[in-house]
């Protein structure tokens, strides 16, 4: 992971002190709520249904054991003993008090963490492949670029008030685990000739009420030229992005309204006008960052693990992924126990996993956009010991990439924007589907549940998407099928009228059973959907 320096430390400390003074002025009545709201949002503090909610940034999803322990301490000291990991690889606390938030920010700053740019119309926390730097199939480690983007976008004076929020995702593998095609800008880093690093820039992806798959905007750009090029895209968006209608303010709409070629020309013209010498530092900075990544000391392969049992083998099959270093493995820790709350972890679990990471994973953890955690550097011979420790704190559910590994947003149980609940639906669905997935091969079938059209749970690109709506005062759930969130990203199609909350688990089971009945060998659910069409699936659900 990246080693932060004094500059980073002083920035988070200054920001924390600044927010303390803003809160004091608000409590003393010197500024109104209308004046204070944008200030608190810039520090990740929302007001939700029951309380404030604090969203803490986890830059590109990488955490140290020490940071995770601090997050657990904060959960106990200021909240209700748990946190919620999000699809943006961040963590949210659901019950902080305004009067205590400055202290929380101080505590976060003590481990170089903060809540800057986790809200508001700015460039948000950059996300990436949770297996960055360790995946066996990786071409280029995306973390140096993520860190470069973090430094470039943090408090960037030109991009603090964009037409709308702006999200970047980066991948360094051909297999896209970062969903780059449904972000405002998705970057694919790859290796070029003579050890160069090139980037493909995908623009205009997004979810929400107008889901779009990003288009390839610029291919094979040398990484040294990337920041001025991104600066050009951001400037054009900042200038022409619509500010008159928040539903049309994202870059995906600008791209759709302007057209790919015309927007490319505008960006190119802007790029030419940028003083490139101002970016001459990139090459050396990229190298400095890459050199400042704390690399674990890998040992040469040790003896094969001797202990095993059936449950461990099931967990290993489902949750352990290949590592680029021989003798090592990536262990994915499911935060989706059947019937549990997707993405939630108690402070006890957070501390336990921080300890496990310290002992067995070079003190490093990752957060995935599927709301799970990762131990990225585990010796294969330690896997059994790791699994035993996970079992003790209920973190050993063997369901990664199965339907019960549901992404769900907080929905109407917490979120002020929600139209329906997501979490209880996810709980009922995972309970019901778990029995089926234990006896049938359902690997890769994804179920995502959003509590409103903002689509924070990425339901549009799930194999089975569930969108909670409010129909005449009653929660109602729209089902979409055939979405994909990988390198072949596609938007799911609605298959029929919405169903009642109680009927969602049954409807999903029917979809899954029908898919199992008609699929061809190794055929994914969206591929089956594309082959047989909507009608047979519709028939299976609605009879």
């Amino acid at each position, binding site marked *: 992971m990246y080693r932060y320096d004094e500059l980073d430390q002083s920035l988070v400390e200054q920001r924390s002190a600044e927010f303390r003074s803003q809160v004091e002025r*608000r*409590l003393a*009545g010197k500024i*109104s*709520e209308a004046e204070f709201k944008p200030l608190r949002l810039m520090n990740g503090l929302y*007001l*939700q*249904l*029951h*309380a*404030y909610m604090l969203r803490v940034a986890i830059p590109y999803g990488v955490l140290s054991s020490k940071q995770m322990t601090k997050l657990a301490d904060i959960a106990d000291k200021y909240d*209700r003993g*748990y946190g919620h990991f999000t699809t943006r690889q961040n963590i949210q606390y659901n*019950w*902080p*008090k*305004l*009067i205590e938030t400055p202290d929380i920010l101080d505590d976060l700053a003590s481990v170089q963490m903060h809540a800057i740019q986790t809200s508001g119309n700015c460039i948000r926390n950059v996300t990436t492949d949770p297996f960055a730097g360790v995946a066996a199939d990786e071409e280029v480690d995306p973390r140096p670029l993520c860190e470069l983007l973090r430094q470039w976008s943090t408090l960037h004076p030109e991009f603090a008030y964009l037409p709308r929020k702006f999200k970047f995702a980066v991948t360094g593998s051909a297999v896209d685990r970062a969903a780059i095609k449904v972000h405002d800008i998705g970057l694919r880093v790859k290796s070029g000739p003579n050890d160069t690093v090139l980037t493909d820039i995908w623009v205009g992806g997004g979810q929400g009420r107008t889901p779009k798959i990003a288009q390839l905007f610029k291919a094979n750009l040398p990484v040294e030229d990337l920041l001025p090029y991104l600066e050009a895209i951001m400037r054009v968006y900042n200038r022409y992005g619509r500010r008159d209608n928040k539903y049309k303010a994202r870059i995906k709409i600008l791209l759709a309204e302007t057209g790919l070629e015309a927007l490319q020309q505008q960006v190119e013209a802007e790029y030419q006008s940028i003083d490139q010498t101002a970016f001459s530092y990139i090459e050396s900075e990229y190298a400095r960052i890459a050199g400042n990544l704390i690399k674990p000391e890998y040992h040469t392969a040790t003896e094969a693990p001797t202990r095993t049992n059936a449950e461990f083998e099931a967990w290993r099959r489902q949750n352990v992924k290949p590592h680029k270093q021989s003798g090592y493995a990536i262990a994915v820790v499911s935060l989706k126990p059947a*019937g*549990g*709350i997707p993405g*939630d972890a*108690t402070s006890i679990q957070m501390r336990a996993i921080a300890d496990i990471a310290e002992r067995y994973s070079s003190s490093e953890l990752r957060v995935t956009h599927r709301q799970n955690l990762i131990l990225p550097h585990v010796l294969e011979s330690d896997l059994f010991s790791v699994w035993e420790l996970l079992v003790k704190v209920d973190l050993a559910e063997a369901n990664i990439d199965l339907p019960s590994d549901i992404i769900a947003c907080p929905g*109407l*149980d*917490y979120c002020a924007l*929600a139209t329906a*609940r997501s*979490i*209880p639906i996810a*709980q*009922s669905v995972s309970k019901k589907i778990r029995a089926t997935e234990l006896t049938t091969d359902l690997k890769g079938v994804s179920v995502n549940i959003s509590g409103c059209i903002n689509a924070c749970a990425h339901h549009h690109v799930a194999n089975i998407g569930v969108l909670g709506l*409010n129909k005449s*005062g*009653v*929660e109602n759930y729209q089902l979409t099928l055939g979405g994909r969130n990988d390198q072949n990203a596609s938007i799911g199609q609605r298959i029929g009228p919405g169903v009642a909350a109680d009927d969602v688990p049954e409807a999903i089971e029917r979809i899954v059973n029908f898919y199992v009945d008609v699929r061809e060998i190794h055929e994914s659910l969206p591929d089956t959907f594309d082959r047989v069409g909507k009608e047979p699936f519709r028939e299976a659900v609605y009879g």
Partner: protein
Amino acid sequence: MNEASTQAIIIANDLRTGRVVYFTKESGWSEAIDEAQRLTDESANERLAAATIDERNNLVIDPTLAQATVSADTDRFTLENIREQIRVSGPTILGSDHASTSQAA
């Protein structure tokens, strides 16, 4: 059987804590739903105006009226909107100790 009637309560968030609070008969704020003043159509807007003063005084955020149906037989008070029901009762998450209801319940 008598007809059900409608009443309202005023809900806001406490500025300092963010917790859900209810406007009381004494023109104060309580985290206990039982202490919420039940308002008829005639009194609702006048009381909302009084509650809004506390927003200007930096005590609460966004006081709003939440409509409820009251059964004439049992006097059972049911908020009409599911959003407000959840706001009052706390998260509805199944079988979890996370789901401790809000302070108000």
